[in-house]
């Protein structure tokens, strides 16, 4: 009985345990690892991934996928930077609009939300499979970013903008604050609200959910919009940290995000998983990245190792759920 209990706990806290082991091993291998500075560094680095992975988790919980987050992130960042720096000029009507920082931020988030909503429309209204719909958006949003920026970075955005990505508040970096608030909201959403329950139900069995009176289309539309909005927030942070909107920002972010979700134990077929699992997944990837850099492992090997960690995590997960 006791061994069973122990096993139960081992399974339940496997990601936490994996995290601890990684930390302990790394602190022996590198004396730079276990410093406050490095800890904040890791947290700051993963915050963008955490934010977009929250959206990704919601999408995957419904049984979908969002491959477009990286491009949407870039577009939202570019929109924010463009609005902030150049405003909007309508030469035909001789109108010029300048934007405050807040206006630009809202503009960025809204543009991300819009692209996410568009994903939702193609998926629910036109029945395009999520993989294809968001793959198309990956290209569309990247192209829009190139058009918007003309292929060149938009730089020099001012101190206020830079504060979002590099500033500190109450001894904690701003991006960490932002991601913490978003994670908290998402935990409440998934555990306590009707919408959260509907998300799980749709991923668990869409037919049964529909016959139970859940508005499938509406819920999916909301979920993809949230994913777009969060990619927008991610875009703002990335832009702010670099003090410039890069046209190729966010390249490949969708993969890190999916990896975090999967390592966190969320099932790709939907209906099963948690936000906190995803946060742990993002932490595992972040610490791994950080450790490999500190240990001077070549970037090529880093990729190989990361791939194997993803495989390992999923294999362990499958093995455990079979035992149950």
């Amino acid at each position, binding site marked *: 009985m006791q061994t*069973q209990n122990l096993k139960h706990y081992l399974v339940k806290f496997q990601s936490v345990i994996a995290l601890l082991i990684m930390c302990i091993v790394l602190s022996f291998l590198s004396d730079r690892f276990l410093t406050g500075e490095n800890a904040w560094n890791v947290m700051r680095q993963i915050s963008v991934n955490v934010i977009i992975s929250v959206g990704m988790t919601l999408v995957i919980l419904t049984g979908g996928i969002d491959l477009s987050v990286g491009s949407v992130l870039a577009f939202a960042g570019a929109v924010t930077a463009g609005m902030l720096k150049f405003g909007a000029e309508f030469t035909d009507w001789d109108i010029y609009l300048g934007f405050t920082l807040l206006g630009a931020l809202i503009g960025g988030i809204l543009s991300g939300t819009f692209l996410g909503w568009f994903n939702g429309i193609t998926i629910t209204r036109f029945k395009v499979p999520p993989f294809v719909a968001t793959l198309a958006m990956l290209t569309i949003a990247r192209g829009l970013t190139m058009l918007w920026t003309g292929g060149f970075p938009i730089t020099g955005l001012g101190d206020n903008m830079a504060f979002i990505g590099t500033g500190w508040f109450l001894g904690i970096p701003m991006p960490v604050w932002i991601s913490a608030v978003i994670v908290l909201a998402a935990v409440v959403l998934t555990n*306590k*609200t*009707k*919408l959260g*329950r*509907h998300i*799980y*139900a749709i991923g*668990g*069995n869409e*037919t*049964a*959910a*529909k*016959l*139970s*009176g*859940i*508005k499938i289309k509406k819920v999916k539309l909301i979920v993809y919009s949230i994913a777009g909005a969060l990619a927008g927030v991610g875009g703002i942070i990335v832009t702010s940290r670099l003090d410039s909107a890069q046209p190729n920002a966010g390249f490949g972010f969708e993969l890190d995000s999916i990896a975090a979700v999967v390592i966190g134990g969320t099932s790709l077929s939907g*209906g*099963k998983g948690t936000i906190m699992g995803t946060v742990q997944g993002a932490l595992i990837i972040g610490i791994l990245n950080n450790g490999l850099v500190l240990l001077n492992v070549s970037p090529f090997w880093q990729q190989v190792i990361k791939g194997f960690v993803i495989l390992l995590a999923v294999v362990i997960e499958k093995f455990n759920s079979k035992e*149950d």
Partner: protein
Amino acid sequence: MEIKNNQPPVLEIKNVSKDFSEVYALKNVDMQVFPGQVAAVIGENGAGKSTLMKIISGVHLDFEGQVLLNGENVYFKNPKEAAEKGVAIIHQELNLISHLSITENLFLGQELTTKMGLLDYPKMHRKAKELLGRLQLDADPRTPVIQLRVGQQQLVEIAKALLLESKVLIMDEPTSAISDNEVELLFRIINDLKSKGVAIVYISHKLDELFKIADQFTVLRDGEKIGSGNMKETSHDKLIQMMVGRKLTERIKKKSALVQEEVLRVENLCFLNPENKNDYLVNDISFSLKKGEVLGICGLMGAGRTEVLEAIFGLFPKYVSGKIYIEGKEIRIKSVNEAIEAGIGLVPEDRKLQGLIMNMNVEKNTSLSNLNRISSFGFIHKNKEEELSKYFIKKLNTRVASSKMEVQKLSGGNQQKVVIAKWLATNPKVLLLDEPTRGIDVGAKSEIYTLINELASQGMGIIVVSSELTEILAISDNILVLSESKLTTKLSREEATEEVIMKAALAEKEDKSQKTGDGRQETGISSD
């Protein structure tokens, strides 16, 4: 009671126990199965019947005790190995792959190939057609099974097991979704198998069936064997007493307190077959339902019973025409949500596919259609949710370790109770029930009938589709009989008897065969 038999048993179970992490499911169970005989296993929902069958057929690997085949100790590592050794099983839950055709499902894992190693479709289709013919399932073997109704899928499952030509055939509630006609057919096949020396293990909650087909019985209660013996030496009441451990109280006869107020009226309801534009699944049906009325719908398989409910519930708005009135007001139902908003509820026929979120717990499944009632500002009150589910667990006597148990871990009958609870809780104006007691034990059945009566007397209009005539006769005030997508007869509870209903159910079919018969006669005459 001892089972006497001069032959040695082909299958023997000795001292089998099994516990799942939360509960034990079987305790020291013994059983013997003889060649050429049907051994019935009975017991309440959650008694452990399916678990025992899964142990025999190599699904559950982790158990205590022995399984002996022809006197030899066997341990099957998986169902495939069991099948190869001659032990086949028809599971209680449907396990077909919905997008594959009937043929592909039948031959899954044992495909026939040509000399080149390619799939030999013509041969497989031919064999499939022959099998379907034996079961009188009138369908093209190329049809994807997703297009079949639950009853038809159950026949495919039966055909799949027949294909294995096993020595021991386990049937876990094979008749829960098929109507009397098909049951007769199945019995003919079983008798045929018996004469070939096949041993059959047969699970069913329909006790009358057992007296027709079974030779021996074994009763399980709470995972323990309570008794066994020969069917000839027992009675209906004795079996129930053993299963339940007490006498069942006679259920209250329904008091007809019909008011004249109409809650639902359907006029000229048509449902075009999405697969075939010249065919109607529901052909011009009109009826009305009063408040407090229980309306039974019966007919043979494929008569359009389920389709009537689906048409009303807005599942296929594009293919449905006709007028639907709720409380005298015409409503246009273009989606399931609109149907629900209009006050209609549907307990669907397939709990696994349409009824439940399998990896969610009992509480969450029960509350799924009732979230509005137990939440404020979009936030769910967890304590109200727990209350709701516990109320129905008690009311329906659902056997669960706790209300936090995932429904996929419940026995089939208990899963069905969760689906029913979900819809009863919504308290709709019109409740549509499609095979509501599929897989539910005798005790719980009468509980559910009582509940249906209670709801009706509170003014709900209820439509019940069932392939069990006794069920229809027991609870309905009025009965509609469908045949070949048409409404052939409306009967009141006083007029209805099994004979009258069966005749009406066959009406259109006979009509059709008469017509084709006439056709043959004519050609006969002309060639003369």
